[in-house]
């Protein structure tokens, strides 16, 4: 009884914190229509901010609390809305999700920049560890009482706000019909900004309260994932009802507390299971949620526009890409080749998003986790030979791909009846579940029926060898890079062919108007399931190739942030284009790490401001991700628009190609180093449109407007390269891959 009571109190307190975070999530979602994936990141920032004032600078606790919770947090929330989220009207759900995910990644990078992760930091409970009293025979700390009290007050306060105040009633109206509210004199933007300010406060409060309860150590990643507990709680209220959200939070808090209390400690997976409880409960809730009303196309056009290339032009670009990679292999170091192989394999995972999100409008936030599933199956079932002679068999690849497809389908199925957001949430939960439960299964345990020792992720690191297909052994780095590139090209062309088929048109129809598709007789669940399974198979194949190119994979290879970064950069590249997958995949796989480590190397050699620049490049991807709200169609379209006039300025184009060939020959003949080549390529790539404009202004004059779509005015030429300038050298060279110039990975 004693045990039960004390764990009940712990559970209630944990639930209270989940409830506070979740109510902020529900509030912002219902008033602005934007689901804030950065809720946990805000909590994390708040906890660190409080630590800085309270313990870093030794301010008195009340001052630090008031400053952080009542001043900085609402300010940050309101700024996020006014600066970023407000611009997301008329964008697809994917864009909205990617923007808040980018904010989350940006806050993480920022926090790691300001507060070095290697220094341990601790928050102490309010009034110290000793501040506790006895209640029915168990100790309760003052901090726990404060947390519970705060949750109760917030619950009652929200109720009062929504039932009794003008602002609250207007907030409820804004959910139903913002346009109508505006007509009646309400101001939806102001209301949304207020709700984001409140949401920021609630997130920060939760972050400050939760840290001492969960051990006291501040941890960027763990705090950021508080958003998952909040999501799981909010699911109980269908992301709308606040009372049910609080009930859900308490249920989750108690459940995780009782698992801690009553599961035998000999079960090695019990603690993993406890951490995974929110993810598991999210799936259970998904299963019982009633079907949503079908959404129609609210607008005649959303702002996202993608042109589907013809198979013929796709084929020519494919040949160019393969030729460029073949040429580059000749001058790159072995390390650079391996790095580019990883990037190219990531681009294959990104292709799964082109199909799923770009063509079908559905979302998967954990594509890399499907790659992890495929990798695990390959490791256990798909290898032949041992040691240096170990190889992945073709059968192994098939098993891995099939496993990713089947498991992906099972994960997606409960969410497919519902809105796209639920699939995003389900896949996010799946991704974290894979990290916490499957990849965390490192210690061998005895299988019940087979009586053998087995662990899923043996010893925490899997060595994945290269592939061998019949007589074709891909152990040599160049052969492997060429093969991965060809696989990318084949899948890419396959996807474009698919988009031109009846199946592809049915996907587009479903994406544009689910309601019209359904009333024409399209079984939406079946179609979504088929496309999700297909995309999971592609992600699985890409994942196997990533693992193989990386040689060893461990828990860090599959943290959820890798998937999120990939999704973000693929959307930035252009989610509807195969070329966008190439940009996103290569940047996420190797691009940004290469740039960051380049600046870090320069700093360690020369000092100066270069460490600052290196940190800046850590934040850059997220900053670019946030910018997607301004340009939701991604960068490929802009780049093409910027370079297209060069076709009419043939002499300039030829000159550029000649220069590039000359630079390449200088490298081959060892007169020039690879770095100068990267620089020359970048200059040629960025300079060509400018030179063309100077020399042949006629070719760059805007063509007489004939039937150009009114909303998608082509971007100014100079803006195309500028849009990726954060990517510096590698960004430039990656882009070259589809513009006819030689490509270069990080050397």
């Amino acid at each position, binding site marked *: 009884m004693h045990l039960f009571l004390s764990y009940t109190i712990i559970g209630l307190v944990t639930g209270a914190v989940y409830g506070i975070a979740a109510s902020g999530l529900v509030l912002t979602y219902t008033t602005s229509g934007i689901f804030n994936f950065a809720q946990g990141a805000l909590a994390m920032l708040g906890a660190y901010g409080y630590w800085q004032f309270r313990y870093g600078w030794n301010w008195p606790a009340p001052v630090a609390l008031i400053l952080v919770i009542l001043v900085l947090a609402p300010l940050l929330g309101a700024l996020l809305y006014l600066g970023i989220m407000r611009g997301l009207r008329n964008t697809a759900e994917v864009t909205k999700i990617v923007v808040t995910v980018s904010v989350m990644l940006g806050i993480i990078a920022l926090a790691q920049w300001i507060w070095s992760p290697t220094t341990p930091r601790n928050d102490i409970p309010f009034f110290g560890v000793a501040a506790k009293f006895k209640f029915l025979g168990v100790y309760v700390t003052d901090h726990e009482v404060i947390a519970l009290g705060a949750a109760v007050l917030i619950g009652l306060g929200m109720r009062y706000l929504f039932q009794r105040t003008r602002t609250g009633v207007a907030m409820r109206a804004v959910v139903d019909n913002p346009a109508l509210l505006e007509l009646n004199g309400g101001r939806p933007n102001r209301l949304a900004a207020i709700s984001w300010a409140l949401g920021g406060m609630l997130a920060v409060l939760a972050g400050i309260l939760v840290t001492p309860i969960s051990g006291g150590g501040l941890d960027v990643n763990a705090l950021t994932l508080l958003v998952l507990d909040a999501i799981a709680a909010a699911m109980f209220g269908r992301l709308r009802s606040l009372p049910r959200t609080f009930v859900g939070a308490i249920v989750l808090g108690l459940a995780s507390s009782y698992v801690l209390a009553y599961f035998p400690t000999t079960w090695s997976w019990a603690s993993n299971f406890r951490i995974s409880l929110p993810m598991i409960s999210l799936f259970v809730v998904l299963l019982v949620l009633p079907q949503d009303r079908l959404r129609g196309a609210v607008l005649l*056009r959303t702002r996202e526009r993608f042109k589907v290339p013809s198979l013929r032009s796709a084929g020519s670009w494919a040949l160019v890409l393969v030729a460029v990679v073949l040429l580059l292999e000749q001058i790159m170091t072995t390390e650079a080749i391996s790095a580019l192989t990883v990037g190219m394999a990531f681009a294959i995972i990104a292709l799964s998003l082109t199909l799923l999100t770009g063509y079908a409008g559905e979302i998967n936030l954990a594509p890399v986790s499907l790659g992890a599933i495929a990798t695990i199956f390959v490791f256990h079932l798909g290898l032949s030979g041992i040691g240096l002679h170990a190889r992945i068999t073709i059968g192994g690849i098939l098993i891995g791909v099939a496993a990713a497809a089947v498991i992906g389908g099972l994960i997606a199925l409960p969410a497919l009846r519902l809105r796209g957001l639920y699939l995003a949430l389900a896949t996010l939960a799946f991704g974290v579940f894979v990290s916490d439960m499957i990849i965390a299964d490192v210690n061998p345990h005895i299988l019940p029926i087979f009586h053998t020792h087995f662990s899923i992720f043996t010893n925490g690191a899997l060595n994945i060898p290269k592939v061998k297909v019949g007589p074709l052994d891909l152990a040599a780095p160049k052969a492997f890079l060429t093969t991965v590139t060809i696989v990318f090209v084949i899948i890419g062309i396959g996807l474009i062919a698919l988009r031109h088929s009846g199946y592809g048109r049915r996907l*587009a*129809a479903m994406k*544009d108007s689910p309601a*019209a598709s359904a009333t024409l007789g399209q079984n939406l669940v079946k179609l979504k399931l088929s496309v999700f399974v297909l995309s999971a198979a592609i992600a699985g194949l890409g994942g196997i190739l990533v693992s193989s190119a990386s040689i060893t994979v461990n828990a860090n290879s599959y943290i959820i942030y890798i998937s999120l970064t990939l999704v973000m950069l693929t959307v930035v590249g252009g989610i509807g284009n195969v070329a966008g997958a190439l940009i996103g995949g290569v940047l996420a796989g190797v691009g940004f790490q290469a740039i960051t480590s380049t600046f870090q190397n320069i700093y360690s050699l020369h000092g100066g401001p270069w460490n600052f620049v290196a940190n800046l490049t850590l934040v850059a991807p997220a900053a670019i991700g946030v910018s997607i709200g301004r340009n939701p169609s991604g960068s490929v379209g802009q780049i093409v628009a910027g370079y297209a006039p060069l076709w009419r300025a043939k002499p300039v184009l030829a000159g550029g190609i000649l220069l590039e060939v000359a630079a390449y020959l200088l490298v081959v003949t060892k007169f020039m180093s690879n770095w100068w080549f990267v620089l020359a390529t970048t200059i040629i790539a960025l300079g060509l449109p400018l030179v063309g404009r100077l020399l042949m202004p006629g070719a760059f004059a805007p063509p007489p407007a004939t*039937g150009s779509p*009114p909303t998608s005015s082509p971007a100014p030429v100079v803006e195309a390269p500028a849009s990726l300038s954060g990517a510096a050298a590698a960004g430039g060279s990656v882009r070259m891959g589809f513009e006819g110039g030689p490509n270069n990975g990080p050397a």
Partner: protein
Amino acid sequence: MALLEASGISVSFGGNQVLDQVSLSVDAGTVTGLIGPNGAGKTTLFNVITGLLDPKGGRVILDGRDVTKAGPAVRARRGLSRTYQQLELFTSLSVRDNVRVAGEIRNAWGRRFRINVKSETDRVMGLLGLEDVADREVGELPTARARIIEVARALMTKPRVLLLDEPASGQTESETADFGRLLSQLVKEDELAICLVEHDVSLVMGVCATIHVLDYGQIIATGPPEQIRLEPAVIDAYLGSTEGVG
């Protein structure tokens, strides 16, 4: 036996009774009109019939089968098709592909439903005079034309019951007259059952065999055009006001 029969349909949104015990039947080979002022509940009734909205009460019988619990796709397979007053075109597809994909959806129903999509697309595009805009983006077209694409798309699944939600709004007088002739031709040749929501009185009176008048969620009159024209309640609620009669 009517091909489509909705009986006792009730819907309320948050305490607001939008449809109250509405019944309506549509026979094969005829155009049935559904008229009423804006906000009367016409589109809501279409949403219930096509399965986009679950009613609080009532039944929908399609070709003798109760489909009240069935989803929209199942009803489409049983021969139901519709257009939308608030356009629901596929904006990333060209005009021709908008029409074509509907046939491709039908072909995905199963082997016995299979049609030749290409020739059927050509036929329907010709029937509705859409050849000149076949390769245009749907978002570029004026609304009146876009509504015709909706009709073409709805015809591609070879429906037996077709619900048209203000298909002729925005059309010129002569276009409306042509459209009326087309509807008469469709019901005669293909034995279609059409339910037409339209504000254009001349079109409705010209092609409909029966007209239902909906006002504030209730059917206030049912009968042939000449009778509806004289019904005092109808004139009061709808025809009497010049608004929307245009």
